[in-house]
């Protein structure tokens, strides 16, 4: 579209939309206004802040890889297979989206904790999850995987099975069809879903706090660091929050771009 057009929309829609946008933008602006710019760099480059940021990026990256690893087969199963209880399974898989993070943390604790469902088994295998970086990654994966499943399942349904059927009659085995046809067709959605998962993992707080603990360098991610900084040094907390917001904005921007690319492609199909 060359020129912006507001034609055809009732004026009240625009007014309400503006109010809604303010609700989102104003708090961010207010936070930016509180940033102590003179000391910004020294605030965000303290040892604990850098450690938290690096830990966050590292764990979120691993969590995103896990989301792709588990999420792709889950989305394929939900989109392509037909079985009893499929609807229920979909609702369950998407549950972390609406679950309060602390509840998620408790659920993980009761599963992977020392006295949890799998705790004894893991203990026997010599795997300790509590208070480890693994616990952070688990918590992040738990809350982020629905984003990937949701966006990928939608894309798979939109693309349909016709290309897969053709590929099969050309002699491609199911794994070849998946690798050379299905996944390339939904690649834009896979990318945007992964980016959203990464963003969600980056922002994970409640489940990590409840499940993984908080120790600099191993479990104290950026959101936990911000929460702790706020106790003693609100300026540092605000500065770090801004860093998190900037990372999130970049990530959402990337996801949006690959999302529109995906839409363009499915429109061409």
């Amino acid at each position, binding site marked *: 579209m060359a020129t912006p057009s507001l034609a055809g929309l009732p004026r009240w829609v625009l007014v309400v939309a503006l109010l809604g946008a303010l609700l989102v933008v104003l708090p961010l602006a207010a936070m930016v206004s509180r940033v102590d710019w003179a000391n910004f760099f020294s605030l965000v480059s303290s040892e604990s802040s850098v450690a938290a940021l690096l830990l966050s990026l590292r764990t979120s990256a691993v969590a995103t890889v896990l989301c792709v690893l588990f999420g792709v087969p889950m989305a394929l199963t939900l989109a392509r297979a037909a079985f009893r209880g499929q609807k229920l399974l979909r609702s369950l898989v998407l549950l972390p989206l609406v679950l309060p993070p602390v509840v998620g943390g408790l659920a993980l604790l009761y599963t992977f904790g020392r006295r949890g469902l799998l705790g004894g088994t893991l203990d026997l295998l010599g795997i300790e999850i509590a208070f480890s970086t693994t616990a952070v990654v688990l918590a992040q994966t738990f809350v982020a995987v629905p984003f990937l499943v949701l966006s990928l399942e939608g894309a798979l349904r939109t693309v349909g099975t016709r290309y897969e059927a053709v590929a099969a009659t050309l002699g491609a085995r199911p794994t070849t069809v998946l690798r050379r046809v299905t996944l390339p067709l939904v690649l834009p959605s896979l990318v945007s879903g992964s980016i959203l998962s990464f963003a969600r993992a980056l922002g994970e707080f409640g489940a990590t706090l409840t499940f993984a*603990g908080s120790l600099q360098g191993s479990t104290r991610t950026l959101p*936990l660091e911000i929460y702790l900084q706020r106790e003693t040094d609100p300026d540092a907390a605000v500065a770090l929050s801004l860093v998190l917001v900037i990372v999130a904005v970049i990530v959402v921007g990337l996801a949006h771009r690959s999302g529109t690319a995906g839409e363009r492609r499915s429109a061409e199909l």
Partner: protein
Amino acid sequence: MSRQRLFVIVALPLILPLSLSACAGPPGDDSSITVFAAASLRAPFTEVAEGYEAQNPGTTVVFSFAGSSDLATQLLEGAPADVFASADTRSMAALTEAFPFRGEPVVFATNSLEIAVPPGNPTAITSFADLADDGVRSVVCAERVPCGTATAALEEVVGVTLSPVSEESSVTDVLGKVSSGEADAGVVYATDVQAAAGAVEGIIVPEAGEVINAYPIAVLADSANEDAASKFAAYVLSTAGQAVLEAAGFGAP
């Protein structure tokens, strides 16, 4: 990805808090006072308020319990309150610099540290020094929060350096890690052990008496109901008030 679905995901968390916060404002009634109190005071202060209300019919006490530094931040941002009861002198001090009180803050209770272990004490902890043993997963408060500052001081007094598996940002989180059995031991306040009511066992540290945490209370200068507010502070310091606090594990001022 379906745009509509994405929208719902993004929009839900924005809409939900609105409907909730709409009902959380304190009543503007003249005969009520709002007390900002440290989270560790929840149980005893609720009981104290019942006694106070019985003595002062027509006056109701509305509480806001949270971490002391949270409450201090909220007061600085202009949250309306009549009384502030902090779990440490630091939060109170941070406030007094920028904030007028009616008179000086008065210490109404003290609290000391104790070791909390899961029921049955599986790793057989008997002393503070045991926490530093290899194979004991201890959890403490981060040094940047009051309970962590106190823990660091206690470490100095006892002469033991802990290497905790986690430094939590609140004493509740420390307690949670211990009661769930994730950690073998945690350093918390005596009152927390008392309040946990069997979910953890307490082990007294003899040196803890040297690291006393004082709880100051003050009436805010811009209180709309100064008379009732002052009466509440006085009631907390009265014999009746002190008896409730003592029962909850607090020490005398």
